[in-house]
């Protein structure tokens, strides 16, 4: 194996001694040309795992590395040239044009006093075309819909010309079409440009269709990891989510789950 692009090895995180570990002995790795989806219920530690991986939170034990190098040895702008991140939420407080926002994807490449070069502008144009935001170029960010803003942020990450993408709930505010478009784009980048993609998602069915492998987390630990058909079993999901779940299969063998109805118990006869 040529070494993982993104890797956590037995990583634990404890933000406060009074609290249980947010991350408990978690290992995961994403190779180049691979899409890994990180799934699990709310509070499972998915975002903490990303933050640990990106060096934004200190590890209690274990190791986080990017392209084989310990995360602590990366300079932040060097890291930004290798890893593009779309975080869960981001609300600019000042008026900002879409073009300005995407141009910030080139900041890690610019010297303190240097102006963007032709290569920088090309990268921005390519990223805008890739994320289908060329028509938004002259809009103010505050006038964008949630889906448009998400695509702009993806374009900014692509402008970084990264070798790995990290996306935290990228489709939370997207409708069906835009969600599918975004995942198709990510997979296209993974297949054609050999990017490594790590995607946190609540949408298990979509994750199952796109990701090469899934890592299912619960309460800070990895419960199950492997191909979607291995991870998404009725038994595991029902226990992790605390709700009865059934699984069926698409014709290509991809598992799709649906939660069972669990009608409310009739009110007790106190009234």
């Amino acid at each position: 194996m040529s070494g993982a692009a993104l890797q956590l090895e037995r990583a634990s995180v404890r933000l406060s001694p009074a609290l249980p570990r947010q991350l408990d002995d978690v290992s995961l790795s994403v190779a180049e040309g691979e899409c890994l989806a990180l799934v699990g219920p709310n509070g499972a530690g998915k975002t903490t795992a990303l933050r640990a991986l990106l060096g934004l939170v200190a590890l209690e034990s274990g190791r986080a590395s990017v392209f084989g190098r310990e995360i602590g040895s990366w300079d932040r702008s060097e890291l930004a040239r290798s890893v593009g991140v779309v975080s869960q939420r981001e609300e600019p407080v000042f008026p900002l044009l879409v073009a300005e926002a995407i141009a910030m994807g080139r900041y890690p490449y610019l010297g303190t006093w240097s102006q963007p070069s032709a290569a920088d502008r090309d990268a921005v144009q390519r990223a805008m075309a890739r994320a289908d935001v060329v028509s938004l170029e002259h809009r103010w960010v505050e006038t964008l819909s949630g889906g448009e803003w998400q695509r702009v942020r993806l374009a900014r990450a692509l402008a970084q010309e990264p070798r790995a993408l990290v996306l935290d709930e990228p489709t939370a505010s997207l409708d069906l079409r835009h969600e599918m478009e975004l995942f198709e784009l990510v997979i296209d980048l993974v297949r054609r440009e050999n990017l490594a993609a790590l995607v946190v998602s609540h949408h298990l069915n979509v994750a199952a269709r796109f990701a090469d492998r899934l890592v299912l987390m619960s309460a800070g630990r990895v419960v199950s990891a492997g191909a979607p058909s291995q991870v998404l079993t009725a038994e595991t999901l029902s226990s992790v989510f605390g709700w009865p779940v059934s699984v069926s299969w698409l014709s290509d063998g991809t598992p799709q789950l649906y939660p069972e109805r669990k009608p409310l118990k009739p009110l007790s006869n106190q009234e």
Partner: protein
Amino acid sequence: MGSPVPQWRGVMVPLLLFWLLSVAIGLTVGGAGLAPFDVARALTGEGEPTARAIVLELRLPRIALGLLVGGILAVTGAALQALVRNPLADPYLLGLSGGASLGAVLAIQMGVASPWGMPAAAFAGALGAIAVVYRLARVAGSALDSRILLLAGVVVGAFAGALTSGVLAVSESAAVRSAMLWLLGGLGGVGWTGVLALAAWSAPALFVLALEARNLDLLSLGEEPAQHLGADVARTKRRVYVAASLLTAAAVAAAGIIGFVGLAVPHLLRLLRGHGHRGLLPAAFALGGAFLVLADALARSLFAPLELPVGVVTAVVGVPVFAVLLRRSVIGVKR
């Protein structure tokens, strides 16, 4: 290819003209009743000695000071706004000015009030104030809420103001008089030495802010996105807080407390041209300077021969801007 990113160059020319106009107005307005022609002759070293003295030794340093102080306050405001992600931030509202003036008053009280020494004392005061403000805001939670930060700034500013009054109340009358005059905020009476001291104190800090301009762009997206885009957030914050404290201290030591320049000027520019700090900071420096020189011209001429403190004029202009911003940010929160 046409860059879609807004070009500050288009604003810089009118801004420069406005800047020159403010200098011309500042030179010709005043109690001595000099005609523009006399002023022009004095500038070239001709004309009457009295006119020459008034123009070269009184008005010119006063204008130079106004350009510097206004520019410094506006740049500092713009940087602080990006840092705390709140368009309502300015050195005055964040308590920096209050801390700096307490430091400076203590310096006056102890008799070390030279144009070179006072900024050092003011710097210590400003750093102390921002440290306390930061601590107070942290109490409310690990995620720094910029509204609480501002509240903490106002509280610390008021506290520093009370201490300043206390120090003045128990000090000797001569020291009090000089301190009171200076606290009101004004550009008169420091002369070329003051201008030089201010320039020397502020140049390194302005340079640091220029270095951090792109990181300020990133920071105003939020700390986490900034890090993903390559900013070393902890380092940038440290540098900007220190530079802002130093700049506020230097401005306060030279001209007393002048509020709202740091609020109104960056806001106007952001409305015009989006948010890239590499353009915003120099533009704010130019517009802030011109604004303060004009405010000072107004302060000198409105009730001539009486002179208003220039801080009164900036507040009269700045507070409505604050009100508009406040209304907007509250509506923005609800949306």
